[in-house]
């Protein structure tokens, strides 16, 4: 196993190194620089040149790359060209906020999907079935940039019961933090909940048609027991697979929701830093994403190898 790991990890490091070169090169090939953003629209070329020099952006590209790589390896991610703040702090805060929003949205999506999916699969009422279909269709079809605005207009501007945007840490009071979290989490959760509910409903209906369920009913088992102990556990596997995919999509969708609700997450950070050509911050953010992906791939390979000894023998 150790030999397999020893073979696998260096190749991951090589991929990471190549990715770092690609990230650096692509950004530097994109026209514009943080110096022109800092200088502003009325600046003359001399001012832009001075700021470029001050930021070290006039150094040869290989030297700039080496400085960046040395910083990464030694754990010094540097400071944002535009904001001036330490990049590690910016990323840490953005990551934590995005994770908070995504986890809340996933939790909410699961709860909604369970209720809607079970009702949709088990009810005999035409009205309820229509309501379920309407809910899942609308939630899935309406984009978050519309549902977000509608939620704000109703609950913040109209009813004044929730803030229209922003973020409060749980340190400032759990209730305050929750009030800021509810609207963006609901907005992000709705499309995912619709997909999960549809899958759960279909899967559950299929399971409920199985013979062992009919046998259980014929034996006189309570309906709740049949549902909870026999039907749902057999309906979940497919839904869990979809949930995994939805989690990834939620992270992507968070960029739009963060913008609507002024949620200071990673999506906002990436967007703003790219627009202002905040090279170091964009490089670090993209490299972080690539690293997470490569680490997950490597861990998966190692886990597969642990479970299947034949893989360890492959070269």
């Amino acid at each position, binding site marked *: 196993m150790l030999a397999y790991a020893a073979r696998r990890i260096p190749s991951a490091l090589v991929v990471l190194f190549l990715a770092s070169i690609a990230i650096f090169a692509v950004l530097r090939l994109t*026209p*514009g*620089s*943080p110096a*022109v*953003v*800092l*200088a*502003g*629209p*009325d*600046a*003359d*070329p*001399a*001012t*832009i*040149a*001075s*700021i470029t*020099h*001050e930021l070290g952006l006039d150094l040869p590209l290989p030297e700039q790359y080496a400085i960046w790589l040395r910083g990464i390896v030694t754990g010094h991610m540097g*400071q*944002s060209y*535009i*904001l*001036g*703040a330490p990049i590690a*702090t*910016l990323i840490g*805060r*953005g990551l934590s906020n995005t994770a908070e929003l995504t986890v809340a949205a996933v939790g909410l999506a699961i709860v909604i999907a369970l209720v809607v999916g079970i009702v949709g699969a088990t009810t005999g009422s035409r009205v309820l079935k229509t309501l379920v279909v309407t809910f899942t269709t609308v939630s899935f079809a309406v984009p978050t940039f519309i549902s977000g*605005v509608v939620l*704000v*207009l109703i609950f*913040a*501007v109209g009813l*004044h019961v929730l*803030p*229209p*945007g*922003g*973020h409060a840490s749980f340190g400032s009071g759990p209730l305050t933090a929750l009030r800021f979290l509810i609207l963006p989490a609901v907005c992000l959760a709705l499309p995912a909940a619709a997909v999960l509910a549809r899958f759960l409903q279909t899967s559950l209906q299929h399971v409920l048609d199985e013979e062992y369920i009919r046998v259980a009913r014929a034996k006189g088992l309570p309906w709740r027991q049949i549902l909870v102990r026999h039907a749902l556990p057999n309906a979940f596997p497919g839904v869990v697979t979809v949930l995994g995919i939805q989690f990834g999509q939620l992270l992507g969708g968070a960029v739009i929701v963060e*913008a*609507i*609700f*002024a949620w*200071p997450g990673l999506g*906002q*950070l990436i967007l*703003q830093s790219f*627009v*202002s*050509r905040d090279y170091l911050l964009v490089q670090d953010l993209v490299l972080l994403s690539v690293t997470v992906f490569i680490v997950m791939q490597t861990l998966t390979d190692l886990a597969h190898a642990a479970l299947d000894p034949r893989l360890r023998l492959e070269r």
Partner: protein
Amino acid sequence: MMNRSTSGVRTTRAQMISLLGGAAVAGFVAPGTALAAPKRGGVVHMAQVADVIPSGLFGQNFPNTAVGGLIYNTLTAYDHRTLEPKPQLAKAWHVAPDGLSVTLDLRTDVKFHSGRPFTSADVIFCIKNIQDPARGSQLRSTAAVIGDASAAGPAQVKLRLEHPVSNLFDLFEIMFIVDRETLPDMLSGKNLIGTGAFTWKQWNPGDSLTLARNPNYWKPGRPYLDGVELRVIPQTQALLAALQAGQIEIALGLAPKDVAALRSNKSFQTLVSDTHGASFYVGCNVEVKPLDKPQVRQAISYAIDRERILKEVFSGLGVATSTPWPASSPAYDKGEAARYHYDPERAKALLKAAGAEKFETTLALNSGLGPGSPMAQIVQFNLQQVGITTTTASFDAAQFIKKLAGGTLPGLWVNVHGFGQLHPATLVTSAFPFAAAKNASNFQDPAYVAAVNRAWTATNERDQRAAYRQITEILLQNEFVIDCVLTSPSYVNVPALRDYTYNMFDYLNFEDASLG
């Protein structure tokens, strides 16, 4: 020679703005509340679409105007109507008759937030700091004229100028007096120490900034507020929702259509700044044929429907004009401001005379500039009506500014410039689109260089006005910058917030502000 005393200037100006009423300050202070005693305490929550950029505080860019004036003071502050400097940290000044030296008398009761007394050494440091090109100040050329700055005691600074300049007090209006001992902390956004009414408390980049009341502020009893919190809300719709939901007391940078809509809403008060410091224009690269012919550029100026742009893009919040000067500028001339008006037939005649009846060119725009795209659409339509076909090319802000600074924008472009609201010499020496030596349009004319130099160095009003007239004439004859609409920042606030002010560069000032 000028000599000024200190008595209550800021209070007077705050009251003046609140009492002016009229178009510029409509609804700023509700009738009946202007004379009520200000209430002490409370925190103002404000929001804007972009975060502050601490390292850019020496440059003159939008995101920083909201907080710079809260943390820092400047040496002087202009009267908005007369552009006459009034005391701030400099309580009096003396300009030598030959214009080659200036003596500043400083306040002696001012302390930085760190507790250190403010002295002449701080002024000298700040001037040298602004002279550093890396600080990105557009007033660097004016600061560079100060050949020597020396202290005559802790409360007096003597400046020796390389040549007389007419816009020295623009520098004093804009230059923040920063703590020389903590400049690196300021540039990194760690801690900003000034002498202003509020102190830097906590900054969460991209999210919020908290300022606290400066208990040792040099103006007795001020500020009334306990603090200010700035929130960053990148979407203007979300910004509007935050205001309507009562989450913030003042919104900066709302879309013009939202500001116009809120003007009739009694729950809010709208203040359109009287500075008119942002001019939306169409630039011409005079190296691109047939834009090299002045007649063609004049034709374009006649072809543009400025009133329509003002109405449809800016919801009427501004002034249609063909010169860069607002009415408060000594260079302003009502007749010249209206010289180019919408006249497609005249445009066609000029194009025919220039032998360019039909041609194609590129219209570039900065995608980061909100009104840029709708304005470009109107310009494109207007030009099509007179036979000029344009292809739009959209660049993001970073690309656009790089091309602008390099003079490589193809054909025409839509953009915004500042500085018209200050001394006229500042616009033509500090705003790159107008710079005489090298500009974004690649326009060169020895007569323009000479006129700019005269305007910059003239020491008496008569010579200055003659130079302004000449500059305006050259600008209007050559139309390498086709000014269209002068606009100002808009502030929308709840009625409870009152008596906030701003300087001629729209630095917000809350030292007299209170929450009712």
